[in-house]
Structures are given as structure tokens and as C-alpha cells.
């Protein structure tokens, strides 16, 4: 697998048209709808809460932002490669001087751009509302958005990999299961019930090491409750996720390269 300038051009071309195709499917209408939902919910919450308005605003905003980006990563990501194969559009691309790894990286990059745009738009809605009602700036505001971006990229790569080896329905089910399990496993390991069951504890520990560490990327509670978080943790979690993403990209490329495109 070698990269040259021409190779990079082809990857960017594929990502450009993937982005264009998804944007034209009016997915951003959903984003705008959620943006206005954030404004409405915050406005309503202001009437019911006293002194906690900024917290409620952030909580709703970041919650909706996470849900929408994970939703796009799963439900658009599941068809990103499998639909190309099913509808044979992939044939038109790889019958050109395009290598399979260029195709897959371009497709993932294209959808990831959509994800980033979605997150950027909703972040603007969330933070503008937050500052408007008196919220104060902290660096965690930036880190939280960055971690949501990493989380959605991780989900997207997991979905892409699964969609290459199983059906679309199973991909959605497994991805959701992995996402929920990975978030819960960290807490489950700390419960006294798990600690009293050595076999279960071992099993959870193995899963804890294998599954993507989504729980590490959830720093919303630190932001909401204005708790301190070490920079080393933030950097460590970022690096861990980036390496996991890289590993998933290589797996996707390997599976796609060896796959018969029937």
C-alpha cells in the first residue's frame, strides 16, 4: 500500500464526491432541525430551572449532538460501503485507476467530513445558547467537542468494518451493542456484584481491553459539574482512540482488498 500525490488526489476526489452525494441527500436538514430543538429546549428549560440553566443547556445540547453524530455514523455508515457493492457503483470507481485502499479511505473521509460538519453546526447552536445565557469559557468545551468527533469517527470505522463482513441489520445491532457495552463496561467492573464473580470479572476485563474505549471519550460530566480533568488523561484518551481508529482503518482495507466484490 503506497501513497503518492496522485493517490492522494484520488482519495480527495472520492471523499469530495462522497461528501457531495450525502449532503445532497438533505441530511443537514436533520442537523438544522436538531439545532433548533436545542434552542427550544434551552428556552423551555430556562423557565423551569433556577440557577442551573447553563448546565441544562449544555446537557441537552451535547446529548443531542452525540446522538445525532452517532446516529449518522451508524445509519449512514452502514450503507457507505455495502450499498456501493450492492448497487455496483463501486465497479465504476475501481474500474478506473483507483486502488481499493484509496477507495475505502476516500469514502470514510467523505462521510467523516459530513460528521464533522454536523458536529460543528450543532456545537455552534449549543455553545451560542450556552454563552448567551451566561455560561463561561473553559478548555473542556473544546475537548468535549473533539472527543465527540473522535467517538463518531470510531463508531463510523467500526460500522464500516462490520458492514464489510456481515449484513446491514447485524452491523447496526452489533455496533449499537458494542457502543452501549463499551460505555457500561467500565462502570460494571467497579460494581461489587462483578467483583464477587471472578469469571464475569475476567470476561468483562477481556472485553474491556478488546472493545473500543468509548467510555474514555465521555467527559461531559466533567464539563457539566465543572470538575478538573488531567491533561495527560485527555492526551492519553486521544492517542488511544487515534491508534484504535488506525487499526480499524487497516482492518477495513485488508478486508476490502481480499473481498470478492460480487
Amino acid at each position, binding site marked *: 500500500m503506497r501513497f503518492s500525490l*496522485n493517490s492522494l488526489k*484520488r482519495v480527495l*476526489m*472520492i471523499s469530495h*464526491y462522497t461528501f*457531495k*452525494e450525502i449532503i*445532497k*441527500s438533505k441530511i443537514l436538514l436533520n442537523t438544522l432541525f436538531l439545532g433548533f430543538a436545542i434552542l427550544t429546549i434551552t428556552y423551555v428549560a430556562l423557565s423551569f430551572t433556577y440557577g442551573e440553566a447553563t448546565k441544562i443547556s449544555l446537557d441537552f445540547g451535547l446529548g443531542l449532538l452525540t446522538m445525532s453524530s452517532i446516529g449518522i455514523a451508524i445509519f449512514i455508515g452502514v450503507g457507505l460501503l455495502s450499498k456501493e457493492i450492492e*448497487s*455496483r*457503483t463501486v*465497479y*465504476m*470507481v*475501481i*474500474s*478506473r*485507476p*483507483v*486502488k481499493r485502499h484509496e477507495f475505502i479511505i476516500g469514502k470514510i473521509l467523505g462521510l467523516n467530513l459530513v460528521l464533522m460538519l454536523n458536529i460543528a453546526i450543532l456545537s455552534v447552536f449549543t455553545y451560542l445558547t450556552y454563552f448567551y445565557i451566561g455560561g463561561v469559557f473553559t478548555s473542556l468545551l473544546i475537548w468535549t467537542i473533539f472527543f465527540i468527533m473522535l467517538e463518531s469517527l470510531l463508531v463510523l470505522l467500526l460500522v464500516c468494518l462490520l458492514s464489510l463482513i456481515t449484513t446491514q441489520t447485524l452491523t447496526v445491532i452489533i455496533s449499537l451493542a458494542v457502543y452501549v457495552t463499551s460505555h457500561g463496561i467500565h462502570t460494571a467492573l467497579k460494581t461489587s456484584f462483578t467483583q464477587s464473580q471472578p469469571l464475569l470479572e475476567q470476561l468483562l476485563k477481556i472485553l474491556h481491553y478488546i472493545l473500543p474505549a468509548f467510555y474514555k471519550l465521555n467527559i461531559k460530566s466533567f464539563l457539566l459539574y465543572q470538575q478538573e480533568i488531567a491533561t495527560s488523561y485527555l492526551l492519553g484518551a486521544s492517542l488511544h482512540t487515534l491508534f484504535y481508529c488506525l487499526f480499524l482503518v487497516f482492518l477495513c482495507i485488508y478486508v476490502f482488498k481480499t473481498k*470478492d*466484490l*460480487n
Partner: protein
Amino acid sequence: MLTFYNISKVFNTDILKKSFTALDDVSFNIPEGKIIGFLGANGAGKTTSIKIAMDFIRPSSGTVEFGETLRSNKNTIFDKIGYLPERPFFYPHLTGKDFCYYMGALSGLNRSTINKQIHFWAPRFNIEFALNREIKGYSKGMLQRIGFLVTLLHNPKLIILDEPLAGLDPVGRKELREIIVEVNKQGTTVFFSSHIVSDMEEICHDVVFLKSGRMIFNGSVKSLIDKNTKLENEIRFIHDGQLCVKIISEDKKLAFLNSCLSQNDNIISVKRVQASLEEIFYEV
């Protein structure tokens, strides 16, 4: 230009199901500069062969070799090949023009070259009126036309078309046949599969004939027809003022003609009875 050496393909769709042999020891050659038809009934293995040639699927055994004109490096090979899949379906939210730009750019063409090619080919394919429309609104025939157009954008040396004439009305088929002949005259080798045997007979120099995953013929259309035609002649003559038609075998032809002449019959025509490619296809 493109040679298949002992290609076999076995599909193992399910662990519990029996494996299926789609191609069994298939060897053939696509010579440069010709139009080659790929014949065979449904399930004969035509699309599987084309997918193997395009490296979409790998053969279980055997090799595909590209000639010097296409070079041996993957990138340069696919730079010079145009391919149109069976029942094409393209990105629904892109316009026809966007799709041309996308495919052209992947072949390394710049905007102005792509525009030039679009201006040249779009009127020929009668698709210029729809270039700014989203592809999701295209009919089956329009998809076929835009697909064919992008196949020719980069002036390929070899075009491989999987059922390019399917789904087109007779006028559309005629237009596409003419374009196939025209690009071939300009030096492009054409390899295409089709169920419409009459079209093949009209434009192909050679055919590759598959039956149940095995190759049963590779050669010129004429030799396939000759091989499958009985040596019979149709003789038209006037006997006692009435037009008569007689089918007579080659070995009895002379004797029959002599007897006609001796009876002062007026011989109008002596024509060899020739089976059409379509009749041979049905027979095989």
C-alpha cells in the same frame, strides 16, 4: 490484448451449501482492434468472467494477462480500460455532469478535457438534455447512455461492456451499435456481452461462446456460423410457369441443376442456406 488462461471460479456461498462452479477452465483471447461478442445463456458465466477480468473478484485458479498495449502495471492498465457494468446504477444525488467530472477526474483528466469529451459524446448519446439533472430521475435507457458516455471519457484502448444494449429501445440499440462500431474503427478494442444475438451478428468480428461455465467456441462469427451450418442450398426456379423452391444438399446440387436445365426450367437463384447466429445460439 486480454487473455484468459485456464480460469476457474468456484463460489462457496455458505458453509452448509454445496459449492458452485461458475467457470471451469476457461481460456480465450481478445485480439487487439476487434469487436468481440461474449455469448452465453443466463448463468453461463459471462458476468463472472468480466468481473475477473476487471479484478472485482479473484479466480479460484488460472490467470488473466493483459497485453503490451495495456501494460502490466495495474494503474496503467485501468487507465486504458473503459468498463460499463450490467444494469448500471449510479450515485442518485449527483447530476449527470457531476458524475462525468467524478469519473473523468479519477482517470486523471482535467476539467477542460472532460468538458470537451462531454460536448463531443453527449449529443451522440442523446443525453445532453439531462446532464444537469440528478441521476435518480434517469430512466433505465438514460442510465445506460450516461454509463456508456463515462466509459468513453478517457479514450480507452479496450472497452468491456456487460449487457450494454439491454433495456434500450430499438432506436437506442441502433445508436449504441453505431457508436461501438465507430470507436472500434478509431482503434478501440470492444469486448461486450449481450443476449441480443442479432446485434452481435451485425457488429462483432469474433465471439466467445460460454455454456454452463465452459468455453465452447472462440473465433470469428463467420467460422461459428459455417461450423454450425449444414451444406444445403435453396434453389428457386420456374417449372411449367410456376415458381418452385427446393432445398437440396450440396452433393446433389449439380445433378439437380442439370435435370432442371434439361427440362428447360428457368433457374432464378441458387443460394446457400445459412443459419443465423441466433439460430445457432438457440440450437447450442
